[in-house]
């Protein structure tokens, strides 16, 4: 046996298949896109980090090379001065230059310095200070600042301590010349005597700090990135926001910079934002540090932007595709569902269109077959029911009321006792004909003549019984005899007219039976001038027979039903009645020509009549 398994939780908690499909597709696509973009994002972040690190390194190297070249240049100038004979002689402690001969020496040295200065924009001043108290600069007339003591200057002291090696100072204000306060970086070096042992003086080259400043401020490391320089002791040589650092409004990870090896990069992530520090050491002890903000790098932004763009577009397209696809997939199902709903409402004439022969096509075909079968079965049931009802009604109508039989026989007996032989013969033969009509079961439809004969017999018997009360008239048009009618159609109405209309009426009552053509109908009228009925009685007459009524005979509604079953709803019984005036029953049936009557009736039962 196949056992249907039901999941505890349905996989898709949505009601329609389309929604489920959309849901499933969307999940699938979203997961795929999310995964791809996550991976893409990771990759791009890594790539951006690498790129930016490389870029910063490149920039820092460039700065390093430039600064190094400036310093090398100062170094070269110092070598030039060192090897210059005029300078040597001029500051020599064992100088043979007397004061009178000083001027030409001074002029030559000054000219040399000046010519160097002309070629180099980065150099602010070149000076030589002899331990013998003499000094020369690139100026024609050199006036020292009387308030600045030479021996107290850091560059002077450090050069003396270094003993012949060049010393680079931190940026400072050079105040040795009167009225000049320039920001410079100084290179100073002690000049040795010709013997190479004793020192004769200090040589000083000042480089404009503007040079380094311009160099560093022009560096483009994104909108917020910058470059700063620290010396070997961790003091900040240059920083775009040096003043903020002095007032502790800003800090830099100096210790990390000091411990970082040249050419390395480290990352800092604090409330100042994610940034990379790229460190490069120079040959003279400074470290140049480039700082770049992660969110500031253009490549990073565009990559991220592209990822977002692709993701959004991808999601939009995939959602649309899933909606369209699910719509297409579920459309035949929805069509079928619509057809099923029509069947549900009772319309069995629907036919589902069978598209491709896939699962749904097969489903549609099976559905069509099923609906067809149901339709046939339904029709069969309706037909059977109709037939059953017809035969039932026919049977009911064919019955002779036992009271009537008894009364008639009683009348016959009574007449026989009175030796009224003719009446006995007449009544008995009428009764016999009545019986014959009711027991012949072969034909339901009989010629109008037969029906009239039947009712005449019936009325004959009744007239003989109620001779002093009942009179009747038959007014059947000649044309009416050319048609056929249902068997024992009129008797129930005549019976009613007698029993309910005339019997209790004082005096003689008359029953008139008419038969005529009216348009395309054959119309019979049973009219009496009996008691008549109130409206309530008239209404009650239509109630289906049951209980007592059944015993008495067959109800008006049964006759009406019988007519309608045979001929359709256009036909039937109508009753007019007025209290104390009489009742008129109109029975309308179609005109049925004798020969074709049986086959022309669409509602004639197809099944053979049984028993």
């Amino acid at each position, binding site marked *: 046996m196949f056992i249907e398994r039901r999941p505890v939780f349905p996989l898709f908690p949505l009601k329609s298949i389309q929604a489920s499909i959309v849901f499933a597709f969307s999940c699938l696509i979203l997961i795929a896109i999310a995964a791809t973009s996550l991976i893409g994002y990771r990759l791009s972040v890594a790539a951006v980090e690498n790129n930016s690190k490389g870029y910063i390194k490149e920039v820092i190297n460039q700065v390093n090379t430039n600064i190094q070249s400036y310093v090398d240049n100062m170094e070269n100038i110092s070598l030039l001065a060192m090897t210059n004979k005029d300078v040597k002689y001029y500051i020599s402690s064992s100088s043979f230059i007397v004061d009178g001969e000083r001027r030409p020496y001074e002029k030559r040295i000054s000219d040399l310095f000046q010519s160097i200065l002309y070629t180099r924009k980065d150099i602010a001043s070149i000076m030589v200070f002899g331990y013998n108290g003499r000094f020369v600069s690139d100026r024609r007339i050199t006036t020292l600042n009387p308030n600045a003591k030479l021996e107290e200057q850091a560059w002077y002291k450090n050069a003396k301590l270094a003993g012949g090696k060049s010393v680079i100072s931190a940026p400072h204000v050079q105040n040795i010349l009167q009225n000049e306060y320039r*920001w410079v970086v100084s290179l100073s070096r002690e000049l040795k005597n010709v013997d190479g042992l004793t020192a004769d003086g200090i040589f000083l080259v000042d480089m404009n700090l503007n040079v380094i400043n311009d160099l560093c401020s022009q560096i483009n490391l994104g909108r917020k990135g910058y470059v700063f320089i620290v010396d070997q002791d961790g*003091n900040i040589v240059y920083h*775009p*926001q040096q*003043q*903020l650092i002095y*007032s502790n*409004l800003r800090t830099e990870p100096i210790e990390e910079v000091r411990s970082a090896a040249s050419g390395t990069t480290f990352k800092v992530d604090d409330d100042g934002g994610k940034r990379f520090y790229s460190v490069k050491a120079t040959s003279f002890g400074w470290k140049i540090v480039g700082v770049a903000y992660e969110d500031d790098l253009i490549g990073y932004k565009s990559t991220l932007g592209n990822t977002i763009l692709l993701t959004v*577009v991808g999601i939009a397209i995939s959602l649309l595709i899933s909606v369209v696809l699910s719509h297409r997939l579920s459309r035949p199902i929805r069509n079928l569902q619509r057809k099923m709903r029509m069947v549900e409402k009772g319309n069995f004439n629907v036919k589902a269109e069978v598209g491709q022969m896939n699962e749904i096509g097969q489903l549609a075909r099976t559905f069509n077959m099923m609906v067809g079968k149901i339709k046939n079965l339904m029709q069969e049931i309706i037909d059977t029911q109709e037939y059953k009802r017809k035969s039932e009604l026919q049977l009911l109508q064919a019955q002779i009321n036992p009271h009537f039989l008894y009364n008639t026989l009683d009348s016959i007996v009574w007449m026989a006792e009175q030796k009224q032989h003719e009446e006995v013969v007449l009544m008995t033969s009428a009764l016999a004909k009545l019986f014959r009509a009711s027991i012949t079961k072969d034909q339901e439809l009989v010629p109008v003549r037969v029906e009239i004969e039947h009712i005449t017999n019936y009325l004959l018997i009744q007239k003989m019984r109620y001779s002093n009360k009942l009179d009747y008239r038959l007014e059947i048009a000649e044309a009416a005899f050319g048609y056929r009618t249902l068997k024992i159609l009129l008797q129930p109405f005549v019976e009613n007219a007698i029993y309910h209309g005339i019997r209790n009426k004082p005096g003689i009552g008359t029953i008139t039976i008419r038969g005529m053509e009216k348009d395309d109908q054959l119309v019979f009228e049973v009219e009496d001038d009996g008691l008549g009925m109130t409206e309530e009685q008239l209404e009650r007459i239509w109630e289906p027979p049951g209980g007592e009524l059944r015993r008495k005979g067959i109800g008006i509604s049964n006759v009406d039903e019988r007519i309608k079953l045979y001929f359709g709803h256009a036909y039937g019984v109508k009753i007019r009645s007025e209290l104390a005036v009489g009742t008129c029953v109109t029975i309308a049936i179609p005109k049925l020509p004798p020969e074709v009557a049986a086959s022309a009736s669409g509602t004639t039962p197809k099944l053979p009549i049984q028993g």
Partner: protein
Amino acid sequence: MKVQRFTVALALVLIGAALFFVFYFNLYHVGPAGERTVVVMLKTSNVRSDFWQTVSYGAEAAAKEAGAKLEVLGPLQENDTAAQLQLLEETLASKPDAVVVAPINNDGVLDMLGRIQRAGIELVVMDTPLRMEGNPARVSGNHREAGRQAGRFAAQETGGQPVVAIISDYAGSGVSIEREMGIKSAITPDSYTDTYYIGDSEDQAYLAAKKILAAQPPVNVMMALCEPAALGAAKALKEAHRTGTVRLIAFDSSLYEIKLLEEGSLNAIIVQRPFNMGYLGVKNALRQLEGKRIAQETWIDTLVVTKENMYSPENQKLLFPFK
């Protein structure tokens, strides 16, 4: 098949819309979006005013750090009220996000600042203590503390026995009043002799200093609250050969004052940190724009610079502004 075609059309329209929006916002965000405009209005934009130039360097540093757009304005002459009013009017018309202003103390300027504030522009006031309705955030040197520093330095230099005379510019100058109050709060009341007002004339200062030197009891500390006062007093002291015996303490720095300090005519100058003022002014304005709370009053500390420490790396930067 009508529905089909409709669906396809709808899909195309939606995709188009999605693409458009993504591109639109993407470009919009990658571009100069979120760039705020800050206008800094100085008392003067003259390149020879070291103080205000340094303020503008600080402002630039803050703007660069935050990625904001900066415009620095100011009249060519300090105290040119009409020019500052005109510039403020133009600023208001250009509708920046924030204005950081060092206002000249004048009713017209105050009215204008009120208008700027009512126009929904964030306002931060630098340097000058002033009373105005909107009560904007202020960033200024702590002048009273500067006065106290001067007073303490004077006491320390005179072995706790200062006799102080003050040479001030105008009786109504907010900055000078603060400084004077600071000085008085750091010394005993009987150490204070008198205050002389010299306007902005060096000659008046010279005459005032002479008067002080002749006064009894002998004054041993002169406080010059403005530059002309310092220059005039230094001249008078030099002439009277009292340099060094009568201490001269000045406020703010200029090249002349630095020279005087270097040669010993001035014993100390109390300097502000203009870079920090510009930096914090712009930074506070930007913070306000971001909706963060900032202190109503931001004080910039001051420093006592003497001949001995004037060439320390830190003080060099203050005395000799370098971008």
